[in-house]
């Protein structure tokens, strides 16, 4: 009696897995082929970059050498621009976390008056695409004399990242049992101690997820970086790499090499924290 059932279940499982593979393999290829091509360019000699081969006849790491040693005209500030990207992304992540954590704590745990309004306003900002706010933001930064200053980009990125971060953290925060706060308060904890000793440790997965989100948002930002920064020494790497497209004979192999290098840190960060990403970003998502 149980034999046919097992066989049926087995068949169903095989069918499900086959279906998943049928969907998964094309998605994997679709995702990996551009990255593979980028890598292929990066290891191809200049004259073979467009050869169309699946693997270069004479693979080389020379392009990486040129990028690392800043030997090309467009790459003279490569490390400085990489540092700018790192500093801006890290500062954005830290500031976003600071603002969002405190806001979420105040709204969710301290039940501050007007918290619901703040949440609604935070969500409302997503009705306006960030690109539409670029020029007003540019004008505002100009009024404050912040143009061509890395801080302008950090502030802009924090502005864009914070509403979503507050929303996510508030949802996660609502899931924490209120009894923990009550116990701490009975023990005489101040709101600050409650925040530092109870709230933050319990929120770590969500904080990592939100911090990674803000960091990657700033790391990949082009439009605001392009508008708000001007001097080559203050630019982030994505904007600086735009120089490679300034003529009709771009050194594509170097552009792809620099792009490949630039793609590595976020990939590493994502994989390091991947277990927090899904749990952290979906924490409280099903809460009514």
């Amino acid at each position, binding site marked *: 009696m149980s034999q046919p059932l097992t066989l049926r279940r087995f068949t169903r499982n095989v069918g499900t897995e086959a279906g998943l593979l049928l969907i998964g393999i094309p998605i994997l290829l679709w995702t990996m082929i551009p990255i593979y091509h980028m890598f292929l360019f990066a290891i191809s000699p200049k004259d073979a970059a467009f050869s169309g081969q699946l693997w270069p006849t004479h693979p080389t790491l020379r392009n990486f050498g040129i990028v690392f040693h800043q030997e090309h005209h467009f790459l003279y500030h490569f490390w400085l621009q990489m540092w700018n990207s790192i500093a801006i992304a890290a500062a954005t992540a830290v500031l976003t976390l600071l603002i969002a954590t405190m806001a979420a704590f105040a709204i969710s745990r301290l039940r501050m008056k007007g918290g619901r309004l703040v949440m609604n306003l935070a969500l409302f900002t997503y009705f306006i695409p960030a690109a539409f706010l670029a020029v007003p933001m*540019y*004008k505002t930064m100009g009024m404050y004399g912040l143009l061509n200053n890395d801080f302008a980009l950090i502030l802009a990125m924090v502005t864009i990242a914070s509403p979503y971060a507050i929303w996510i953290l508030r949802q996660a925060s609502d899931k924490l049992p209120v009894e923990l706060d009550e116990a701490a308060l009975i023990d005489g904890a101040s709101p600050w101690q409650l925040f530092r000793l109870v709230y933050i440790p319990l929120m770590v997965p969500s904080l990592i997820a939100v911090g990674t989100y803000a960091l990657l948002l700033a790391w990949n930002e082009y439009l605001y970086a392009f508008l708000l920064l001007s001097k080559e020494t203050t630019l982030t790497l994505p904007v600086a790499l*735009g120089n490679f497209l300034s*003529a009709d004979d771009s050194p594509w192999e170097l552009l792809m090499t620099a792009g490949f290098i630039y793609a590595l840190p976020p990939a590493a960060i994502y994989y390091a924290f991947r277990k927090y990403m899904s749990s952290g970003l979906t924490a409280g998502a099903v809460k009514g």
Partner: protein
Amino acid sequence: MRRVLAGMAAVAMILSAAPGYAQDKLNVWWVKGFYKSEDDALYAAIKKYEAKTGVKVELSQYAIQDMNAKSVAALDAGTVPDIAYSDTYDVQTAGKWAFDGKLEDLTDVLTPMKDRFEPVALSTALLYSDKAKKKAYYAFPIKQQTLHIEYWKDMLAQAGFKESDIPGTWKEYWSFWCDKVQPGIRKATGQRLFGTGFPMGVESTDSFQSFLSWVDAYNVKLVDDNGKLLVDDPKVRAGLVSALTDYTAPYLKGCTPPSSTTWKDPDNNVAFHNKTIVMTHNYTISIAAKWLDDANNESLTAEQRAAGKKAYEELIETQTFPKKPDGTPMVYRTAVKVGVIFEASKNKAKAKEFLAFLMQEDNLRPYVEGALGRWFPVTKESQESPFWQADKHRKAVYTQYKQGTTPFEFTKNWKFTILNNENAWAKAMNRVVNEKVSVDKAVDELIARIKEVAG
């Protein structure tokens, strides 16, 4: 209390000093040069200017494709640079900015040096302002480019032909590459190579710049000197039909790669460098200059540098156009690249002073020549520089410019920048080659669009 007062006095002194400090700064936006030598020449000129005047120049450089977006954002936000230059201002924005009254009149700077300029080049900076209701120099010319023909001599030989076999007349010339060279090279190599590379992509500037040279070849004038449209003239329509027929013929005959209809600006260069095509036409001699750049590139291997030198000096030829269909020599359409000082600039006097300094021969020439021949000078003296006689490619550029030039329509009617930006010309080509519409119908549609936009 005394400390508070002292502090307030110090703050007041700092604040009062701030405007003076701001006046001694000049905010310059400049397109990023493709070669280090271009930027080095610009930096040297800026350094000289700073040493001479004590003014601090704040230079910001952007990629060519970013300059317009950045400039438009700055105009909208009211935070414009004091002076700006981009390789794209001429074709895309300068005419409209001048029309809208957003540019400073530079007549007082350019008039004293008027005789130094090649007249056609300077004339392109003479733009109409609807606000001032007058034409004036609302831009300054820096450098210019025109259309050249480039071909591989070794591929031509492989196809079984000598350079002396290339005809000098219009129809025969284009037929030669398509009907003789292409079968020859395919037979010799067994590969699906193409005789020509005709840029036809809607997203490229090469396509419309090339096509408009075909329009010139048929002596078609789309506007008069006052910008009035002439497209209702039956001769203009007939000329456009001939130009479009000739320009689309290589594609219809399979003599240019099928992908030419989607080519962006680098793609004909890439096809040429890969030796997929024997010949192409290109604004600037960037195709040949790429190989010269390789020859001088220390980061390449000795073999790659030698290959670059050989290609530049021996294998690639830069050629003038054949005679026009009527048998007269071609007059080349020149795209004069201009910079601007915005009307909203906070430091117009210093910006004009900087402009006058930069336009001096000693400063402008190294900047233009730093581009290894991609750009041709706008001043008569620089045009006669030994640089333009140094090799065969530069000599060809020089010869073309000496043959005579004509400006683009947008210098007379700025609305042609809209037609160029939407690439009405390449759309007409694509109607013929992809949608199989007759040339006559495509031209009628093109004329209707020209009248709608620029009428």
